[in-house]
């Protein structure tokens, strides 16, 4: 199960014509493990949504090498979901088996065992029958991680997966990510913790709407690049005219 590379060719993603990701080119190699970092409003979530197939580029080309969007596992920020919904943990985790089970088929014993396994892996053993309304924010995030585990996807997109999660569970979940990496899956994760990124992620994309640097983590997370990323104006320019740059601006720092 070797996924195709995800190739971006001068991609611009915009809301109301204002660019959220501006002239981004590069590729996520098969089996790579990349952290996406940048200030608030830098376009990180927008980029993940485009990779997941939820958004179309306003300009440029995003080539997923024919990969079906159903084969992409996407962990959105947990805040988007209604945690008062009357569902139990096992019911939410089981959604991860949608591709295998579809709309109608009952789950067999082996699949039920996989759900139990996934819950155990994220530290939620014994939570199967608990209503999701009783979970803490961190526990709910782990539950979404279990659902992602069950999707068994060759490409995984994670949006701030460790927000509100304690350090022990974060360590466990990073173990899961590293196992996936070892299995040759492509992983793209939006993160804020630079120490964690340096320790765990071989590659990093530093984004401040426009790309600042993309490559080996040690090369990307240099003080001068981080300082440039911080200079990004967070507000849109309400008076901006049409963009006349055909290619990446400012020039992408070529990290080795």
């Amino acid at each position, binding site marked *: 199960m070797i996924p195709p590379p995800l190739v971006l060719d001068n991609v611009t993603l915009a809301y109301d014509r204002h660019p959220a990701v501006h002239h981004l080119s590069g590729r996520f190699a098969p089996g790579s493990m990349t952290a996406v970092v940048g200030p608030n409003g830098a376009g990180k979530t927008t980029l993940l949504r485009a990779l997941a197939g939820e958004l179309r580029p306003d300009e440029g080309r995003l080539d997923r090498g024919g990969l*079906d*969007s159903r084969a992409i596992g996407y962990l959105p920020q947990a805040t988007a979901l209604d945690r008062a919904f009357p569902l139990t943990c096992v019911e939410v985790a089981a*959604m991860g088996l949608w591709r295998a089970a579809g709309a109608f088929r009952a789950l067999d014993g082996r699949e039920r065992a996989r759900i139990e396994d996934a819950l155990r892996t994220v530290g939620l053993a014994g939570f199967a029958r608990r209503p999701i309304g009783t979970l803490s924010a961190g526990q709910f995030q782990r539950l979404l991680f279990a659902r992602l585990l069950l999707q068994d996807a060759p490409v995984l997109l994670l949006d701030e997966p460790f927000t509100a999660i304690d350090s022990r569970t974060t360590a466990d979940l990073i173990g899961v990510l590293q196992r996936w990496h070892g299995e040759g899956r492509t992983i793209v994760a939006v993160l804020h913790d630079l120490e964690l990124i340096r320790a765990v992620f071989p590659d990093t994309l530093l984004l401040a709407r426009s790309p600042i640097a993309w490559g080996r983590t040690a090369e990307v997370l240099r003080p001068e690049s981080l300082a440039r990323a911080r200079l990004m104006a967070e507000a849109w320019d309400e008076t901006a005219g049409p963009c006349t740059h055909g290619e990446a601006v400012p020039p992408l720092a070529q990290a080795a």
Partner: protein
Amino acid sequence: MLLDPLLDFAFMRRALVGTLALALSAPPLGVFLIQRRLALIGDALGHAILPGVAVGAALFGLSLAAMSAGGMFAGLAVMLASGALSRTGALAEDASLAGLYLIALALGVAIVSLSSAQVDVLQLLFGSVLGVDDDALLLMATTATLTLVSLAIMWRPLVIETFDSGFLRAKGGRGAAWHLGFLVLVVLNLVAAFQALGTLMAVGLMMVPALAARFVSATLGGRVVSACLIAMAAVFTGLLVSFHADVPAGPAVVLTAAVLWLAVMVAGPEGSLLARTLRRPHLAG
């Protein structure tokens, strides 16, 4: 004595059987509408059905088939129009529904007033147990059966679509199709119920028990079952109240359901006033 009307009158038995059938199919739809934060859509569709029913009656007289077909058509039209309006992005779906249902209600009353057919507006809006003839009973039973079977089939995608529509879309689960199918069931149930309960009050059988169920169970399945039980109790009691107190069936059933809602809000097992007030000793772990 209290039950005499049911023993003495066939029309009461028909109304009871028909509304009991709908008490099994409409409340589960209400539970899903509430979870989708579309509680008002039932109201809007209830109003929307009226002009269709009125046109059916004006053109073909008081024929059940014509009125039901008209109601079904009008309900689906308003549902699709509001969806299309909200997709233009200028208005949220609930705002466009609020506009559309007022127009539909006004149009319905105007058509009824203008038509030569002797249609009683109050009866259309609030229902009459006398309206349930054999054909209406058949429509109600068929609707209930179709709804329950459809819900059983679409349960999993509907739950996922309601909880996390983005996830289902990403997995290629055709979320919009399930949602549309679900709304067709909503319209169908409202149309089937209007003879007995009226176009406005039919929504009550769908929504009020579903609201009450929130105080009975913490799980979706539990809420569906308890909403049905509450609706059945409301239908049974409401029809008897309607007969003895001589009020239209629709309001009697909805008010009975409202009393049950109040009861579980005060003393139900989940999050009721009583449950929150009673401090039970905490557990060891």
